[in-house]
């Protein structure tokens, strides 16, 4: 850990534009079949050009405002704060259209896809949140949508499958491998190879080949940018002492962190014990990027396990791996029991039933409050990435 300070000082400004070939330190890159290199390059070029275009940004900002309900509020968790002895502010992505932060990214990519002349979106989904968001954006912009979903998830998430179909999307059950998110992602990539000229692959988190981790973070940074302004108005210190978000692939966390990377705020990513790519993973390459993955000694990828379907991914976005290397963010884990208890506690204290993914962040704050990690009196911004409606059936089983 002695090296940390030097590394940090030497590091380029954290969370800026990634280095050459989409690198975040040692991580990132574009490890895709040659057949997809050109497609990725086109996405990158189109994104860089669009992102530099105030017209595109304005169009996206308008969609986010009039369709998705941005800005989302910053809610002081009065009662939980009093109980925990810290000042806890919740960034309410659960109030965004379709119920989570996923819509921010998806509207950005859908708009980009339309600008690129693509007529169809491809997406992978686990619990179905990203799939529903993609189907939503596609409907809104008059695009088609094909969503790949592990066969097991199709069975477990019948309601979301129906929502996607109602929104006009085609849902393709994936029978390969473990028949869950990891395999749906592989299948979406395979499918993209054949249709890259007409379809855009709408990746759901800060994962995938370059430029996806950067692009998705930029589309999600609206969370952090808004929260930064809102904290400035809500806190005497303007900037919170701690910034906390759950991490699956890491998009809500990346979007949140991006707003605070240049502040003294400590950044915390909370992972599921059984899907802790950043906290417990080892360097590797999957789905087009180099990062940290749960894997065995041979390099075979492990299946992730979490009560929160959205955290059921064995890896983590490359920028998180880099932030961990830099020591700029820290990654911690909570277990399923802590998560369900935290969900109930937040519901009772604040009248908010969080997504089980988001409850991971809450669980860690509950555990850490008052400890050396999160001393009493701290101010904490927590991104509540989604609402718990989708998880009620799961909770009914376990509570």
């Amino acid at each position: 850990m002695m090296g940390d300070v030097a590394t940090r000082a030497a590091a380029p400004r954290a969370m800026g534009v990634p280095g050459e070939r989409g690198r975040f330190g040692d991580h990132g890159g574009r490890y895709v079949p040659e057949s997809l290199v050109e497609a990725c390059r086109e996405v990158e070029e189109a994104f860089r050009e669009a992102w530099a275009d105030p017209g595109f940004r304005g169009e996206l900002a308008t969609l986010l405002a009039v369709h998705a309900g941005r800005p989302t509020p910053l809610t002081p968790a009065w009662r939980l704060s009093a109980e925990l002895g810290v000042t806890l502010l919740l960034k309410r992505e659960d109030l965004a259209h379709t119920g989570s932060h996923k819509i921010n990214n998806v509207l950005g990519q859908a708009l980009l896809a339309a600008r690129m002349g693509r007529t169809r979106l491809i997406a992978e989904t686990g619990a179905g949140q990203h799939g529903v968001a993609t189907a939503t954006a596609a409907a809104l912009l008059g695009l088609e949508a094909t969503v790949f979903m592990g066969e097991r998830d199709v069975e477990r998430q019948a309601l979301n499958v129906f929502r996607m179909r109602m929104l006009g999307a085609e849902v393709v059950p994936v029978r390969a491998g473990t028949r869950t998110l990891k395999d749906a992602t592989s299948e979406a990539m395979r499918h993209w190879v054949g249709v890259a000229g007409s379809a855009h692959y709408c990746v759901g988190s800060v994962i995938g080949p370059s430029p996806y981790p950067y692009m998705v973070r930029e589309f999600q940074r609206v969370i952090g940018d808004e929260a930064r302004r809102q904290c400035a108005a809500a806190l005497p210190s303007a900037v919170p002492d701690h910034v906390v978000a759950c991490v699956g692939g890491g998009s809500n966390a990346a979007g949140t962190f991006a707003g605070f990377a240049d502040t003294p705020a400590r950044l915390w990513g909370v992972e599921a014990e059984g899907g802790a790519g950043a906290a417990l993973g080892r360097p590797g390459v999957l789905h087009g990027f180099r990062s940290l993955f749960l894997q065995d000694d041979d390099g075979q990828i492990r299946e992730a396990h979490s009560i929160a379907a959205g955290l059921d991914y064995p890896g983590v976005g490359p920028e998180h791996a880099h932030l961990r290397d830099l020591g700029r963010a820290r990654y911690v884990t909570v277990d399923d029991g802590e998560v369900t208890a935290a969900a109930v506690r937040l519901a009772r204290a604040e009248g908010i039933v969080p997504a089980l993914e988001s409850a991971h962040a809450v669980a860690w704050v509950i555990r850490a409050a008052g400890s050396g990690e999160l001393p009493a009196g701290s101010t904490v911004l927590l991104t509540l990435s989604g609402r718990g409606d989708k998880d009620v059936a799961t909770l009914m089983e376990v509570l």
Partner: protein
Amino acid sequence: MNALETRLRARRDAGRKLLMPYVTGGITPDWTEYARAFAAAGADAIEIGVPFSDPTLDGVTIQEASHAALTRGATPRGVLAGLAGLADLDVPLVVSTYCNLVFRDGPWAFCAALREAGASGLIVPDLPVDEADEAADAAAGAGVDLALLASPATPAPRLAEISRRSRGFVYAVSLMGTTGTRSALGPAATALAGRITGLSDRPVLLGFGISTPGQAVEAARRADGVVVGAAIMRRVLAGARPDEIGAFLTAMREALDDPGA
């Protein structure tokens, strides 16, 4: 020039069309017998897949084969040990696998292990040329040829770079898709082979979807040879024994040798 490329060039220059059959390492307890059958049927090189949990560029057949091999307990170490047992074959062995297995202990260690096991070539489908520096150095250091892939979507300058930096041969991907048998070879396939041969005199093998002697002949019209993977593994998964696969390849060999027949 390492052993693999030297051999392939020599054969090509002698007017022979090249045949590289594929088998998933560990797919059966005696999987190396398939490699022996390949050699007996006149393979010019043998591709051995080290199965990976998440084969993102493979179609259902090789996915299934990888899954089956892993379920049987196949490991990279085990597959390489199997390779070492094939040292007596006078056919270059080319290992194919995904980045994650190459990088697990680092490409230097991986390539050294390949070398030790007697492999002379390496294919990593999710390692495009832009990301290949370190692996290429490691392979070169170990005397292993790292063959790069080219695809119908690859633009001209990039194709030149791939052709230049590939070692052993250039792996021309016949179509925009995953591995797996196809009923017909698309026009993109031979066009790509032609584009590459126009850029480099390195042998060009066309792969993905070649499943019949007729397709092999058609492919070999512009390419220097073919890779046959899923067509073999489909049979293996259906229970075909090495001698049956040998017969299948013999027919292909004959067609390549005598396209007019």
